[in-house]
């Protein structure tokens, strides 16, 4: 229970709040009595507001104003920086926990994961597609329309759950032992697979590969005959067609 009276600071309640109470409240250290006082006393609320404005002004202008940019921090980590700047950043790191943490992030990136982290990059989940249909289907969307090579070849639809692959294998004109493998992949409603790759393999040997475009299409030319494997390396898994007869 507060008692109302007027003290020199204009506070109408007792016990009056001093500046230490207000600063602690602004720093998030606030007890229920101080909170109740600020809700009831407009004079102290105004003083708290004045202090908040000056604190905010100082934070806006000064927060991390001496920190090097992330580019400079990177240059420091790489030692690709002039000696004066290097010493200046080293001194700054002595005082700044923020930059020390960020430098640690850079160092971890440089050392822990390695440059060629082959383990963990190649998807470990392997999904084998099964043949659903074979025959003549409408042209694979996105494929070149005026092909001067090859005859109309075999067409297939492969599927596994929500993954669907339309595949066309055509002989190369004038080179009957070589084929062109064209495909269009769709993975349910998932984001596009742009940047991922399609490869034709004979055992472990990569015979050819191609990037998959934004429409999920790819073409691998000059594929030799044989019993081969088509591998589509996506972000989280590998989709394969085993025993692809070309």
């Amino acid at each position: 229970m507060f008692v109302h009276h007027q003290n020199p600071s204009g506070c109408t309640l007792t016990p009056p709040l001093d500046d230490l109470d207000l600063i602690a409240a602004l720093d998030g250290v606030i007890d229920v009595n101080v909170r109740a006082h600020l809700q009831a006393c407009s004079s102290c609320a105004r003083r708290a507001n004045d202090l908040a404005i000056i604190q905010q002004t100082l934070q806006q202008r000064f927060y991390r104003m001496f920190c090097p940019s992330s580019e400079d921090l990177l240059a420091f980590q790489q030692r690709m920086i002039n000696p004066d700047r290097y010493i200046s950043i080293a001194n700054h790191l002595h005082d700044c926990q923020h930059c020390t943490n960020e430098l640690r992030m850079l160092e971890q990136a440089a050392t822990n994961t390695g440059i060629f982290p082959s383990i963990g990059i190649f998807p470990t989940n392997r999904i084998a597609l099964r043949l659903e249909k074979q025959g003549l289907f409408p042209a694979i969307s996105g494929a070149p329309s005026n092909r001067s090579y090859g005859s109309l070849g075999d067409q297939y639809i492969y599927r596994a759950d929500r993954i669907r692959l339309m595949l066309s294998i055509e002989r190369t004109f004038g080179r009957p032992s070589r084929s062109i493998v064209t495909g269009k992949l769709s993975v349910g409603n998932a984001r596009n697979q742009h940047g991922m790759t399609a490869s034709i393999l004979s055992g472990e040997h990569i015979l050819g590969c191609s990037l998959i475009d934004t429409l999920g299409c790819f073409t691998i030319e000059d594929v030799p005959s044989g019993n081969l494997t088509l591998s589509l390396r996506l972000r989280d898994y590998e989709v394969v067609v085993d025993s692809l007869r070309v």
Partner: protein
Amino acid sequence: MQAISATFQASTQPTGTIRRTRALAVPNQAIDATEIERMSLTILERHCAIEGERFYRGQPHDTRFGYELFRRALVERDEIAWEYIFNQYRGLVESWVRRSGAFASSGETSEFFVVSAFTRFWQAISAERFASFASLAALLHYLQLCASCVVIDSVRAQSWAEMMPEEAIVFARSPYSSPDEEAMERVNRTEFWEYINALLNDEAERVVLFNSFVMGMKPGDIYARRTDLFSSVNDVYNVKRNVLGRLSRNQDLRQQFDI
């Protein structure tokens, strides 16, 4: 920079075209460095695709083609080579970004970080600087660090958001329309810092001001760090009260800096 942004845009838009590759008959060992330098971009891309796939599969791979592609992109500023690099390595960069502890809480898409990392890499490595990267590994290592940098910038933006209300962040960190504007802002901040410093009385006040508002520390943390200067947390609070009180009573400060 506009050109490179356009390249990113172009490379992420559906084109309806299909990339093709031919199986390469010539063993890589038989291809010497001069031949690689003279190789058409299309053939170079094919070699890169296959070597990249070997790398992903943990097989022995030849990095000379990838290095040459980077050279054409960064030294010759060949945008087609650059677009290919972006497409070829974006998956790798995305995996680096996703591994970063800060990514999950960033609220940004991995695509945002990937594009930012490539942009930073492009800006950082000039034709002259390319010579200091002796191998594909060194280039990718630097690309990896650029990815970390953009995550760090995101962490910094987050710490700003936690430190200040949104309207204050807009005021304090609005994008500058020109380098002059940024330089002016830096000068203004430095002048303001010097002005405030001149109003302080001693080392304790300077330590409290610096740690409270430059480092964003609470009084308890300041005390823990400088027990040589303060005998208790209350000491820190007292100093902070004195400083803020003095500043808030300073009419000149209020007028000059519109507080």
